């Protein structure tokens, strides 16, 4: 079950025509899908569209009532391949994933789907993970649209616009027999807003109906000679149909004055930032009313030549606001102007940066510079010749003071002890080549662990170490892969590959029972029962099935000593072939979410409950922080003592500690210091507990009194 429950929000999916929907962008998209009569939805979780998957998972009842099939796909390739259901049948289907990483994985299926074309509307909703908050390489989904010739919508970032884009997307897909990608950026996914709902529509043909009346058409299958015909069809039939639809339905929008010497063209997703820059330049009001001519591309691929050329009519200069690189749109527009023999100057990356997010300041600077150069008469005096320069506050010193705060392992994370053990084994056996993978475990590359040299893609950790397999090598490589990546494609690409190629490396599969980094979605090896999914398939069985002979399973990662022993054995054994370690403990974030209410209720209900927490004896801690260098847990921090005899702050554990055990285990395994203690509080103790306690305390305090009466004791000064 996912980290965040949308059980309450999904009720909004039932809103009928005329009612106002209020909520997150992601939820609005889900509602729009149902309003469009979608027949099936699939996808793979990942920011920023994880919540879309979570919402759908929590909305199974509503989907069931409408006859809509939902799948949590095994990968983005699976999700896209699922759209094959729209090839022969007039069923609308949608797939969703994080882009560009998901689109990379999906591209095989996407290219095949795009070649044969679709009958029912096929919509791919990509969460564009670009700019601040992104966790992936900075690329553009635009390139995929161009190479496979699928259409790309990039609507203005407000709820009514993205809901309309979903509706437009399905229609566009159907009239042009082409899958359509709908791109939504990170903040747009999480934007809170309103739109007026329509009734949900039952799909005219459900997947069940299709199964009852199967169809086929060899002409839609990607194999010569059909594939050659597909290519021609794309440019001769589908492209003109798409252009016609976009122009006729006014998908792209014009704002501002009809005439003027300059204009701005932008991706729809950039609209709000452009308006904000114009507002700050004194050229637009709160509601976006402006005199500057604007051409907003809610469809960024294909581009509509006539629309653009008529926009340029009578303009000296036009600025293209296109985030990311290469600047495909700008290049295409430049070619249009050139071929049409127009004199309008086209600028873009001259005023705006070639690479990087278009933040508020970047927009203000870029658009301001463009207007000052091309249309200074538009600008108010203060902007043309500002009086003040800078705000007079010097922040240079502050940059050296404020520490960076990258994401890291959560409180009590079961992956922390795995990397503590790895760090300790490296202290013992020397440095190794370590290949990392995608997932929470990638935080190992950051302090305090600083382990891992590369990350090559989801489930590809061990695959990325496959070159390091030499009979001359004295050391083995170590590679990590999470359970999410393992099922996504690691089983074949990494484990199968290692078995087949007789790789001699060590592979650690980090099994935390969920696809944890994306929000705790269930996967095949999840331990909990799931009403609509089949879980509890052990990773160890799958690994054995792939032919791995040397396999060890650690069912409690917090046992740092054992983890260390197994790693040592894997790195030194004479046995050939891949050495696979499955390290299993439940994601603490999800475990706490699951257990905390149960524990609280049990305590309230008078049940005997033992709650652990760790502590540090501050007079035994010497303030070296070796323990923190093997932990980095948010609940383990430092504090100053009110004692002038002590210079350095001591370790300290705050109330957020969940008693995972890492501190004690690491202190033991690394032979650090005896200042940690574990305090188990027995709530609602049994009569036996109480009897034992009173007997123990009586004898213990006898000893304490005996000693303390014979020495000097100092009350705290």
């Amino acid at each position: 079950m996912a980290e965040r429950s949308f059980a309450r929000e999904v009720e909004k999916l039932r809103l009928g025509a005329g009612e106002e929907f209020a909520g997150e962008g992601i939820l609005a998209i889900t509602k729009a899908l149902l309003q469009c009569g979608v027949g099936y939805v699939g996808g793979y979780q990942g920011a920023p569209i994880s919540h879309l998957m979570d919402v759908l998972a929590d909305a199974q009842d509503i989907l069931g009532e409408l006859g809509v099939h939902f799948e949590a796909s095994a990968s983005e390739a699976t999700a896209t391949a699922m759209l094959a259901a729209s090839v022969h049948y007039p069923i609308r289907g949608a797939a969703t994933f994080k882009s560009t990483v998901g689109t990379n994985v999906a591209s095989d299926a996407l290219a095949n789907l795009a070649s044969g074309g679709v009958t029912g509307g096929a919509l791919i909703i990509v969460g564009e993970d670009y700019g601040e908050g992104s966790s992936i390489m900075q690329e553009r989904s635009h390139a995929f649209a161009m190479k496979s010739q699928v259409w790309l919508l990039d609507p203005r970032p407000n709820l009514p616009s993205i809901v309309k884009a979903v509706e437009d997307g399905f229609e566009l897909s159907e009239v042009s027999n082409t899958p359509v990608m709908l791109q939504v950026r990170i903040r747009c996914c999480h934007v809170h807003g309103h739109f007026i709902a329509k009734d949900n529509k039952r799909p005219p043909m459900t997947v069940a109906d299709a199964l009852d009346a199967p169809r086929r058409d060899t002409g839609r299958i990607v194999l010569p000679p059909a594939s050659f015909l597909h290519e021609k069809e794309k440019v001769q039939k589908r492209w003109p149909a798409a252009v016609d639809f976009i122009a006729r339905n006014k998908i792209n929008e014009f704002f501002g004055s009809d005439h003027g010497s300059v204009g701005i063209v932008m991706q729809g997703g950039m609209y709000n930032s452009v308006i904000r820059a114009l507002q700050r330049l004194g050229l637009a009001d709160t509601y976006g009313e402006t005199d500057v001519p604007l051409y907003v591309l809610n469809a960024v691929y294909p581009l509509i030549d006539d629309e653009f050329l008529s926009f340029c009519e009578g303009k000296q200069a036009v600025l293209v606001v296109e985030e990311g690189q290469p600047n495909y749109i700008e290049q295409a527009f430049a070619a249009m102007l050139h071929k049409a023999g127009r004199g309008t100057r086209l600028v873009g990356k001259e005023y705006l940066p070639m690479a990087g997010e278009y933040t508020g300041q970047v927009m203000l600077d870029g658009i301001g510079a463009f207007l000052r150069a091309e249309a200074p008469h538009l600008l108010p005096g203060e902007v043309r010749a500002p009086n003040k320069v800078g705000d007079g506050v010097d922040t240079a010193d502050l940059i050296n003071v404020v520490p960076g705060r990258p994401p890291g392992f959560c409180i009590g994370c079961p992956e922390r002890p795995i990397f503590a053990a790895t760090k300790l084994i490296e202290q013992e056996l020397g440095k190794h080549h370590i290949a990392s993978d995608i997932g929470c475990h990638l935080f190992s590359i950051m302090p305090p662990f600083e382990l891992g040299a590369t990350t090559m893609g989801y489930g590809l950790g061990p695959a990325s170490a496959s070159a390091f397999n030499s009979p001359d090598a004295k050391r083995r490589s170590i590679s990590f892969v999470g359970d999410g990546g393992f099922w996504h494609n690691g089983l074949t690409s990494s484990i199968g590959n290692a078995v087949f190629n007789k790789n001699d490396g060590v592979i650690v599969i980090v099994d935390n029972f969920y696809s944890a980094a994306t929000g705790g979605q269930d996967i095949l090896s999840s331990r909990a029962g799931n009403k609509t999914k089949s879980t509890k398939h052990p990773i160890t069985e799958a690994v054995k099935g792939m032919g791995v002979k040397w396999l060890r399973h650690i069912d409690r990662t917090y046992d740092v000593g054992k983890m260390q022993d197994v790693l040592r054995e894997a790195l030194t054994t004479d046995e050939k072939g891949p050495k696979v370690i499955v390290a299993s403990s439940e994601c603490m974030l999800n475990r706490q979410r699951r257990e905390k209410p149960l524990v609280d209720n049990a305590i309230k209900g008078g049940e005997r409950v033992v709650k652990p927490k760790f502590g540090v004896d501050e007079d035994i801690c010497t303030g070296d922080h070796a323990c923190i260098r093997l932990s980095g847990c948010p609940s383990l921090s430092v504090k100053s003592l009110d004692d002038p005899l002590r210079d350095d702050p001591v370790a300290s554990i705050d109330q957020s500690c969940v008693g995972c055990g890492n501190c004690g285990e690491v202190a033991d395994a690394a032979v650090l210091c005896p200042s940690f203690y574990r305090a188990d509080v027995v709530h609602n103790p049994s009569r036996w507990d109480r009897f034992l306690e009173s007997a123990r305390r009586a004898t213990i305090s006898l000893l304490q009194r005996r000693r303390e009466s014979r020495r000097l004791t100092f009350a705290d000064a």
Partner: protein
Amino acid sequence: MLDAVPPFRARTGAQDDERVIKLAVLAVGGQGGGVLADWITDVAERSGYIAQSTSVAGVAQRTGATIYYVEMARNTGRLPVFALSPSQGDVDILIAAELMEAGRAIIRGFVTPDRTTLIASSHRIAAVSEKIEPGDGRASSSKVNATAEAASKRFIAFDMEKIAADNGSMISASLLGALAGSDALPFARESYEQAIGAGGRGVKASLAAFGAAFDRARGTAAPGPEPAEPAIVESASGAGRVNGPQNLLHGWQTLAARIDLMPLPVRDMALRGLRKVVDYQDIAYGRDYLDRLDKAVALDGADHSHALSIAAAKHLANALCYDDMIRVADLKTRSTRDRRVRKEVGVKDGSVLQVTEYFHPRIQEFCGTLPAGLGSYIENRPKLAAFLDRRINHGRHIRTDSFAGFAALWFIGGLRRWRRRLLRHKVETAHLERWYALALSHVPHDYALAVEILNCRRLIKGYSDTHVRAQSKFDRVLSALDLVKGRADAADWIRRLREAALKDEKGDMLDGALKTVASLSDHSVGGGGGRP
């Protein structure tokens, strides 16, 4: 960088009541920034405003720095165009849920003196980079506070985390209270309270934290008492409470009376040192301490503000109270420790506390706790030592709430009375003598250098391997002594080396600094003391 026009002098001459209010929240993942942003949106919508909030979720929420952004404008029946992220120089209210996040907001340009109300919780959540230094790697809060005053139009800062905790709530509630109390938004207090109430979970505690922070931000509630400056100790014999049998108290009075004879600035540290040493061992050990300290006091004078004596008082005490098994066992079996654990863990009446200790003794610790002769005998026979180590060197989890576990530690703690005869004591005493004599030998010609040598004792800490590494750093720093002594800046160099040694685990920074020192003396032949 282009400057923007002062806000909202829009083309159509928009009225002030149509302006967009921009509010950003910078928080650490897990602090509940999303809850706060939702509340603010709700308050705005309840108050006749249109609001839009956005956030960047994803992995940043895993303990990293996160940002939430809200824009709002009076509902005039038309939809405003809101931006989805804050811009430099264009934020009206910045809420930082932690002090360094306020610093980050300033660096990012989200706080400007012409318009930004900066509301920050003054508490710190140390970043990993701050915590992993072997010394004190924490960032300077005063620098952030000073810049925040200058960089913002209004700076409201107090410990909102504490207010939340005191009221059994989360910081999002006290941040909302501070926002409401600041009057930076044109909304009534009731709207905020209604928004909290609509959340439906932990409402009572949230409202209490909200109210307390509201009052603090308004200035109607007094800030908590400032920590009092430590009183200057005039007379040691009377200060602090000491309990014990009469003969020991008499011995203590005699020792304390000796502190009264010391120069006034030295007394506080000397008394603290004396208490620590007597608490560690006995009255006689305290006498040893004062005898040694007297040597430094005799060489010292008021012209250096008694820096040497104060440093000696501090570091002699720490050196004498080395961390051995006996000390650990003694501290863990005291009744005061039991009470402290119960308080920290929050054991309520009717609950039972079980305490597990983590020990991992090695042959070295074992030998250290043997009589000096026997201990050295074993240590000098590697095969025997290795044989014994295989039997001793295991992690031991000892339950000190059980009688057997407690009694074992109590017994080890009781070895205190024989400590002076044990191997570890012999080793530690020899080390202390060398270090102290070395420091005092420099007093006549370089007083500051002598003080810095004393301060190097700070490097020695930790147990087992950590302790070995610390010793090595200590030795490496002092190895530079021959290179720098005689130079006018010798003391400064030793201080720099010590600080470098505290920067990282292995002492890489220290090695770099030592190379610099070595090159110094290469280039300064004839200047200063030259090379040994």
